[in-house]
């Protein structure tokens, strides 16, 4: 406090603090420059740009006199950008593309894949022992034909018989006019070798020799040809021409498409699909209602039970409170996905502990009856969630100001009146934001549903694989094929996630606004 302001920020003079800052920033810069170079090397231009910007901002913030607040929040901001904003923005971007099965990659890779999938070995053609040779810089193949003749050629020079070749152990080891490549040299140019096609003759329809392992050659013909100039694919057997369409696929005039497509922007298509498929209309309504019911009841039940226990264990007359408190927190110590799995075993109709031991062999279909399954989900979530509420309520209760309580006592308020008018409002001020976050968490409590019931039992009247305990997020998982039941559609999944995000964000914002009125009491 007594230090002059100029020294306080450590940016003038060669004070020890300034030196330390200089060293640290130098380290940061060194790391940053390394990252920039690494990004350059890997061709990741996005990362490169972000790193340069971040470095500039960091240097400016820590050496400028006018950026005091930024000095504190910059690290946090950087993390926010990387872990939140980027992820949300990327999800948003994917929601407008058709990324998914059949549209997994770029157009170049799709073309490559189509060409390679449609290059066939000529049926009944021989497999010939092959040697990679070079004519100067040009690569070529030397093969031994089935009747023992050595033939050689390059990409531009069809195969022709070469005399005077040395053959050892069924393989050409020396060839006049060509250099035989060693294995290491072949590996060095393996990309070229696998791409090399040596025509069998001057007639291109007879196919060409290619090799996949540089040891054996086969005659291949292509049934699909790509013309870069017109950007079209042509089927050489039928003559049909395919040109790229707006969905990221090659399409012929009659509407047939080639199997491998690529990622393109599709605008609002995913959102239209999300709400436009009438097979989903019925189940969607039911699932929406159940999701809200599940989230609200879960928050309410866990909060009430936690609060009750907190009050009970807060009473100084109770003996062994510490033991009880420890025991009550136990469910909180077990990972949620494990507990859900455990409960699904405990609730098995014939062999589960609950039916077999606790209920004396009753065959109660806890997880397979629509109503009971919902109760089971809520019950298990209560078991999982109340320790958390118990903890925060205990904390809040213990931090209540005793003077207010005493004042109420002096004013003659009864126990109930004190609790209702003083304890509960003060408690809610502390816990309301946590209740909202708990609501948001349960709204997307995928783990519990997935592990406990898998969304089942299925709707009998619906034609989609959804069930009575499915919530919105588990529905997204199923609808977009991430569980393997349909073709994967990351675009649709992202679009639905954004819809859920909007729902949760709206509710949370409204609820937070409401809690301000609580704060006024305090």
């Amino acid at each position, binding site marked *: 406090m007594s230090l002059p302001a100029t020294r306080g920020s450590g940016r003038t003079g060669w004070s020890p603090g300034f030196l330390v800052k200089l060293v640290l920033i130098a380290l940061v810069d060194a*790391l940053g420059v390394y990252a920039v170079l690494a990004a350059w090397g890997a061709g990741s231009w996005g990362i490169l740009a972000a790193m340069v910007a971040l470095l500039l901002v960091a240097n400016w913030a820590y050496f400028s006199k006018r950026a005091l607040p930024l000095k504190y929040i910059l690290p946090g901001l950087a993390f926010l950008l990387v872990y939140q904003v980027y992820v949300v923005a990327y999800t948003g971007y994917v929601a407008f593309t058709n990324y998914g099965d059949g549209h997994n990659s770029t157009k170049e890779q799709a073309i490559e894949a189509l060409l390679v999938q449609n290059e066939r070995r000529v049926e009944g053609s021989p497999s010939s022992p092959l040697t990679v040779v070079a004519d100067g810089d040009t690569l070529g193949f030397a093969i031994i034909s089935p009747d023992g003749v050595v033939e050689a050629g390059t990409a531009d020079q069809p195969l022709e018989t070469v005399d005077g070749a040395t053959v050892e152990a069924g393989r050409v080891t020396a060839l006049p006019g060509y250099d035989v490549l060693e294995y290491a040299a072949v590996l060095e140019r393996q990309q070229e070798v696998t791409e090399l096609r040596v025509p069998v003759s001057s007639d291109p329809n007879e196919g060409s020799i290619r090799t996949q392992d540089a040891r054996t050659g086969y005659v291949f013909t292509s049934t699909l040809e790509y013309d870069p100039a017109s950007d079209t694919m042509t089927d050489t057997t039928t003559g049909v021409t395919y040109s790229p369409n707006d969905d990221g696929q090659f399409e012929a005039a009659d509407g047939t498409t080639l199997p491998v497509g690529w990622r393109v922007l599709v605008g609002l298509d995913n959102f239209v699909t999300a709400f436009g498929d009438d097979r989903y209309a019925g189940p969607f309504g039911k699932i929406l209602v159940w999701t809200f019911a599940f989230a609200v009841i879960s928050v309410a039940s866990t909060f009430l039970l936690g609060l009750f226990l907190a009050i009970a264990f807060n009473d100084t007359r109770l003996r062994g409170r510490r033991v009880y408190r420890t025991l009550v927190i136990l469910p909180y110590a077990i990972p949620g996905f494990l507990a859900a799995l455990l409960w699904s075993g405990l609730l098995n109709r*014939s062999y589960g502990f609950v039916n077999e031991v606790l209920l004396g062999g009753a065959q109660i279909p806890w997880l397979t009856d629509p109503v009971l399954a919902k109760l089971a989900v809520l019950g298990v979530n209560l078991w999982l969630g109340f320790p958390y509420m118990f903890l925060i309520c205990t904390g809040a209760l213990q931090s209540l100001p005793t003077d207010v309580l005493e004042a109420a006592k002096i004013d003659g308020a009864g126990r109930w009146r004190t609790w209702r008018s003083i304890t509960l409002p003060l408690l809610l001020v502390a816990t309301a934001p946590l209740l909202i976050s708990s609501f948001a968490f349960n709204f997307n409590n995928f783990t519990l549903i997935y592990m406990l019931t898998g969304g089942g039992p299925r709707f009998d009247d619906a034609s989609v694989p959804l069930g009575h305990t499915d919530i919105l997020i588990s529905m997204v998982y199923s609808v977009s094929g991430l569980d393997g039941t349909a073709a994967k559609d990351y675009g649709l999944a992202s679009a639905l996630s954004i819809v859920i995000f909007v729902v949760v964000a709206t509710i949370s914002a409204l609820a937070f606004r409401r809690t301000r009125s609580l704060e006024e009491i305090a």
Partner: protein
Amino acid sequence: MRRSILTAAALTATLALAACSSGAEEPAGEESAAPNGEGSTLTVWVDETRQAAVEDAAAGFEEATGAKVEVVLKNFEDIRPDFLAQVPTGKGPDITVGAHDWLGELTTNGVVAPIELGDTADAFEPVSVAAFTQDGQVYGLPYAVENIALIRNTELASEAPATWDDAIAAGKEAGTKYPLLIQTSTEGDPYTFYPLQTSFGAPVFEQNEDGSYKPELALGGEGGTAFAEWLAEQGEAGNLSTDVTYDIAVAAFAKGESPFIVGGPWMLEQFADLDLAIDPVPSAGGEPAQPFVGVAGFYVSAQSENALLANDFLVNYMATPEAQLALYEAGDRPPALIEAADTASEDPITAGFREVGADAVPMPSLPEMGAVWAYWGVTEAGIVSGKSDPAKAWDKMVADIQGEIG
């Protein structure tokens, strides 16, 4: 001053992390870039069971070629999604282990390259190569064939049952808790139930002449209805129950609570102290009961920069009896290479599974199969538990799958 240092330190950490993250990706980028002869590195994804066997084969390959093989351990469940996501970015492996029924999805997304087996193809069990064939192209090098069969506890039942009813009668005679065990669960288990379904003449898809599937559903019709009604009947009689999960079935069989269990070689570890015999799954509907065959193999990435090396490794080093036997010893599945399978068949259990597998059909690798799985099991479970009317539920299932496939 102190605060300013603290923030600077935090920033250092931030940027260091950022640097690490991009730094960590960088070597991977270099790896798949410009191969340089002796320094070429082949990246292979394997799961834990296969790791040692692939590493042994890789050692021989490294010695012979001077190239380096990097074996990367992955969870088997992660391999398919990671392969699909990473190959397009150029960061995927050159080779990965996989199952043949991924093929449809992998080719639709253009992430696998065909492998020309050449004359080696004849050295493999025909069903294993057929399983990796699509549209006349082979996309994987098979190494193991797996299928289910009827596992019999010879102490409780001395003879192989010819039909389902024989098996139930023999099971009842044995006086055990269950006449026969077959995993069902509330979600259903159509994979395990498939031989029973085919015995009613209701395969899942129509087949082309060469045995490959076409995306036309065949599980409806008379055969399908008969199978559904049979399921309901057996459920009511208590021979099938949705309460029997995989764990319950295996534990009960290990305790000697049933003479029969329908299952695969992956169960054998738990039955180590029982005397077993492997029989075909008994027919319930009169026609032969054909289980699904799953073939495990290696795929080559379509974006591999070491395609030559990858193919050389697979065709010339993994298709050898030694390598295939090493994989067999690690995974207990009969090898796909006939010569290796013959050696492995000295074990009567392996021979039993192999014999049953000879009459089995490959599991369809069509992308449409996902939609079938989504409805199939739940419908079967609903019928077995008596919740739904068999014929109606089966017809609705066929219609729903058709709706999903489009």
